[in-house]
Each structure stands twice: as C-alpha cells, then as structure tokens.
C-alpha cells in the first residue's frame, strides 16, 4: 500500500512539473526574446510582461504543486527511488507534452536526447 502511495505521488510530481514546464515555456514564447525586449524597453517592462502573463502564473502554481507532491512522495518512499524516478519520467513526459501542446518539432535527435538523459538520470541513482 505504501508502494502505491509512493508511485501515486511520483505520478503527481511528473504531471504537475510537466504542466508547469509547458505553461512556463508557453508564457515565455508569448513574452518573446527577453534579451531583445530588455534592450528595447527596459527591465521593468520585461518583468511586468512576464508577471502579468496568465500562463506564467498558472505555471508557477503547477510548479508549487509539483514541489509539494515531491515532499509527499519523499515522505513515503526512499529519496534514491523518488528523485531519479520523477526526474527521469519528467524528461520523457516533457518531450511528449511539448510535441502535443507546444507543437515543438520533436525529431529523432530530441527523442534520443530525452531518452538518453532519462536513462542516465536513472543510472546515476542506481
């Protein structure tokens, strides 16, 4: 039963942090190149435009949920299982979500990269 709780919490971490990453990425694409915007309009404009973006605020909320889910997962399972499992599953989930929701071109190269990194993270904790 404890096992099921742990994996449930890991799943929640993966879902919440993928949602957060996708929302933050969408927000920053709407804001536009920060370096360019800073040079043209100044830091205050950049900060204002980011902080008033609804996707950004929702993304932060999702990240906070991911953080608390991670705390719960850690209280049920070992850190050596929970941390790498959620990090490595998040890499793969992000590749899928970025393709579906952000319409990024996830070619062979990017799939390979996501899978290699996910595998590497798992091995680091082994």
């Amino acid at each position, binding site marked *: 039963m404890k096992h099921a709780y742990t994996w449930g919490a890991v799943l929640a971490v993966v879902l919440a942090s993928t949602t957060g990453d996708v929302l933050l*990425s969408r927000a920053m694409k709407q804001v*536009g190149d920060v370096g360019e915007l800073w040079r043209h309009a100044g830091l205050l404009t950049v900060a204002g435009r980011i902080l008033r973006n609804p996707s950004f605020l929702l993304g932060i909320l999702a990240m906070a949920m991911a953080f608390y889910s991670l705390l719960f997962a850690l*209280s049920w399972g070992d850190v050596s299982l929970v941390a790498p499992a959620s990090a490595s599953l998040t890499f793969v989930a992000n590749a899928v979500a*970025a393709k579906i929701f952000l319409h990024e071109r996830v*070619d062979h190269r990017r799939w390979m990269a996501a899978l290699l990194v996910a595998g*590497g993270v798992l091995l680091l904790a082994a």
Partner: protein
Amino acid sequence: MTFRKYLVLSGVTLFAAIGDSLLARGMKQVGNISLQRLPDVILTILNPWVALGIIFLLGFFAAYMTALSWADLTYVLPATSLGYVLLALIAKFLLHEQVTTTRWLGIALISAGVGFVTQGPALTRHPRDQKEASGDRLAEPGGTRPVGTRMDP
C-alpha cells in the same frame, strides 16, 4: 545560437547544481523537518547555506525563463541536464561520496544526450511565427511576414 545564449544555458546548468548542493548542505545542518511542524520550514531560510542556495536557485529560475524565451522546451531541458553530471562531480570531490561505475555510465549517457540535442536547431519555427530568424537556421516557407509585429506594445 550566439555566445550570449550559450552563456545563459551554462547559467541554468551551474546555478541549479550549485543551488541544490548548497540547499543539501544547509538542510543537513537544519536536520529533519516533520510534516506536523511545517511552519518550521520558514525558519530554515535563516541558515546561511539555505539562504545562499535560494539565491542561486532564483538565478537559475531567471536564466531558465530567459532560455525558454528563445529556445524550445525540448531543447533547453536536455541541453542543461549536464547539471546532473556536475552534481555527481560535486558529490565526489567536495562531499567525498563514492561514484560507482554505474554512475559514470549514467554520466556518459547524459553527456551523449546533451551532445545530440545541441547539434540540432534550438527553436521550432511555425509558419505563423513572426520572429526573425536568428541566423542558426534558414527561414521556412511562410515565415517571411514582416518582423517585429510581436514586439508591438
């Protein structure tokens, strides 16, 4: 990809790894936190290591947001995953943990993944995307509308 952009990606990588290491060191000093006394978490920021770690993680967040403003999520995440390698090296040389063969293999896989993704384009260009091509990739058909319209106040 310009030098400045590689600098931002390095910032994402370095700040995350250093921030996490500082937090880990600080939290070891603070000790266990129980869920029953969650408000104690607020007091942990009084620990100098934790405070410094949070400053580094804020730097990480700023660099991460900057990177996402001009690169795809599926580019930024693998490209900055060298932070895991850096964490393993910090663990070995500063915290004197043992790094096993399996871990070195994991480091090799992550490095290979980083190599793969950084060879490719950083940003997907959509036909309706009006951003100017930054020179690392030829503009695609349909991407020839006037530039700058996105920047309008």
